[in-house]
């Protein structure tokens, strides 16, 4: 259906009128939980970008690896899920630092495009490695009844995890904002992000700041992965690709480098995706295009994103 037909607006209003309150509420709950999941992962992108000015393409695949870690922890080694949760966070943080050391640190002085290619390479390597090690067959994310149970409020059905995800997102947001704004490490981070050279001259240990950034970003990825796994329990080597792109877009929409912006962007995307299908059911096949279209519109009108600050390129 390439041709957009004229009656669309009519149908739009009809769709709203026909939609019962419970359906609307259900859509809202769906969108909210998807959005908070996007937000959680988007924070990781925005943090790395804020400091290093590069897209950490591998972030999505770190999420994917974290899902596999969780699978091995719970299903293979039978570790209780809460302990696995902690273990996964640690393992993923280590993975993040390893990637930073091997793929990004050697290129710190290199042109930006090389770093970008290296990031794409790292992402591609992780995917292929997972494909090779764990085979392309989907694994099932372990079921955690406490989190996967259903709660009914009136006619609206909510999975317990959908209540946990937003809490996690806002908790992470609060902790992060505290770290960035009120600790010494955070101050160093802000300094590096403002001006890399000056920060170094002023005695900031750049390597340590960047490593910390990666630890925090990857830990968030691990939390996101865990939530993702419980909510959508099929694990494949390519599971991170699409969500990764969307979360990066969320970060850009909100203003890259801005943590609150990433959360805002995540919610815009999550709710937008759900409501576009809710109101225009005939467009359900185009759902994935939504994120990209929003991205391009935002970049066109406000290249720095909704909450971003305007910077001028130094000559």
């Amino acid at each position: 259906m390439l041709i957009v037909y004229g009656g669309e607006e009519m149908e739009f209003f009809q769709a709203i009128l026909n939609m019962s309150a419970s359906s609307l509420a259900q859509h809202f709950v769906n969108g909210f939980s998807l959005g908070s999941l996007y937000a959680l992962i988007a924070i990781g992108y925005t943090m790395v970008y804020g400091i290093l000015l590069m897209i950490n393409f591998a972030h999505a695949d770190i999420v994917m690896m974290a899902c596999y870690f969780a699978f091995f922890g719970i299903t293979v080694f039978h570790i209780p899920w809460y302990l696995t949760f902690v273990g996964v966070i640690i393992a993923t943080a280590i993975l993040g630092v390893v990637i930073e050391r091997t793929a990004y640190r050697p290129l710190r002085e290199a042109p930006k495009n090389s770093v970008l290619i290296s990031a794409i390479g790292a992402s591609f390597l992780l995917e292929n490695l997972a494909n090779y090690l764990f085979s392309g067959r989907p694994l099932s994310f372990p079921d955690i009844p406490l989190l996967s149970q259903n709660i009914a409020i009136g006619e609206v059905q909510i999975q317990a995890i959908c209540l946990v995800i937003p809490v996690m997102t806002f908790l992470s947001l609060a902790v992060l904002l505290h770290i960035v704004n009120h600790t010494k490490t955070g101050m160093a981070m802000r300094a590096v992000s403002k001006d890399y050279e000056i920060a170094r001259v002023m005695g900031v240990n750049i390597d340590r700041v960047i490593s910390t950034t990666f630890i925090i970003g990857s830990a968030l990825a691990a939390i996101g992965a865990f939530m993702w796994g419980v909510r959508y329990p099929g694990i494949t080597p390519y599971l991170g690709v699409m969500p990764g792109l969307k979360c990066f877009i969320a970060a850009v929409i909100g203003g890259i480098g801005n943590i609150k912006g990433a959360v805002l962007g995540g919610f815009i995307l999550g709710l937008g995706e759900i409501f576009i299908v809710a109101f225009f059911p005939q467009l359900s096949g185009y759902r994935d295009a939504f994120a990209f279209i929003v991205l391009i519109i935002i970049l066109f009108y406000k290249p720095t994103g909704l909450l971003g600050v305007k910077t001028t390129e130094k000559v």
Partner: protein
Amino acid sequence: MKLKKVMSVLLASAVMLGALTGCGGDKKEAAKSDTIKVGVFLPLTGDNAAGGELELRGIKLANKLHPTVLNKKVELVVADNKSDKAESASVAARLIEKDKVVTLIGTYGSSLAMAAGNIVKEAKVPAIGTSCTNPQVTANNDYYFRACFIDPFQGTVMANYAYKNGARKVAIVQEVSNDYSVGLAKFFKEAFIKLTNDPDAIIDIANYQTGDKDFTAILTNLKAKNPDAVFAPGNFTESALLIKQAHQLGITVPFMGGDTWETQEFIDVGGKDVEGAVMSTAFDREKASTEEAQKFLKAYTDEYKAEPSALSAMAYDAYLIAIDGIKRANSVEPQKIRDAIATTKDLEAVTGKTTLDKNGDAEKAAVIKVVKEGKFKYLDFVDAK
């Protein structure tokens, strides 16, 4: 600087080494006249790896039970097409030209088979599809055959089943980027409208993309329309998640799908939520009528300690068709084998007596199965006509 040079030299030599070993492989080919080479190309990695692996099991088992033809040993040359079309084409060409196989078997995934279609046509080497159900695979191609039924038949079977069990308003959820799903959905829709005599019998067609994880939006829409049943053919991972989320949203009507669902992963990922999901497939223990089927069942459970899936059975049959063709052609010349395969009639195969029609498609009965207590259970049987 020095390190970089050393690294680059190492890198270059690694590539060279790879190239050399690649060339070295050719020597093996010194064609031993006491073997007949049969090429197998399947997706062993990538999206379709699960299906490819099951089919490889079937083919290997068939080779084990029927290791010789014309008093020569049959050697399988297995290649991975990575669930990728360009790869599938070049793998098929490689098997034909480099490995000099006389027949090809494969593949899971119709688009992968179609990519190889031109190659076998050009090289005049017959190919036997295992579970590529798109009608286009064998259409206008005299060298492609298949051991499975085709999408129109499968869609019609499920429409009949739905109608027979009292469904009058059905919603369709299709994986719009998957040819298999789109094909099944279309034929289901046509057959169901005909059966019910109601042009509005299909109350909703919703789309999703391969790899999607969140289906809550389309499902919430669907719930409001209150269908009697949902027809949702597609990849097993996505389908399992779809059904899971449907249950979470309180949708309790039965879900129906096609033969792709019949993999362990569907149950692993879907858990108790996929209980009651109904699908059409080609084979079941209950309907194992032929002797070959009994042999297959026993050998399969001995070898892999698991219940065989229809995919393995169909791949096994594809091998049988190939061997039968070679035997009746009494030759290893691909053209003669092709002519023999085209006249396959009443071959004793696992999924019943197999006859190939003028398009090269197997006329097959369909079995309808349901997920019960974490297992695929026989439910119903639909004849080929």
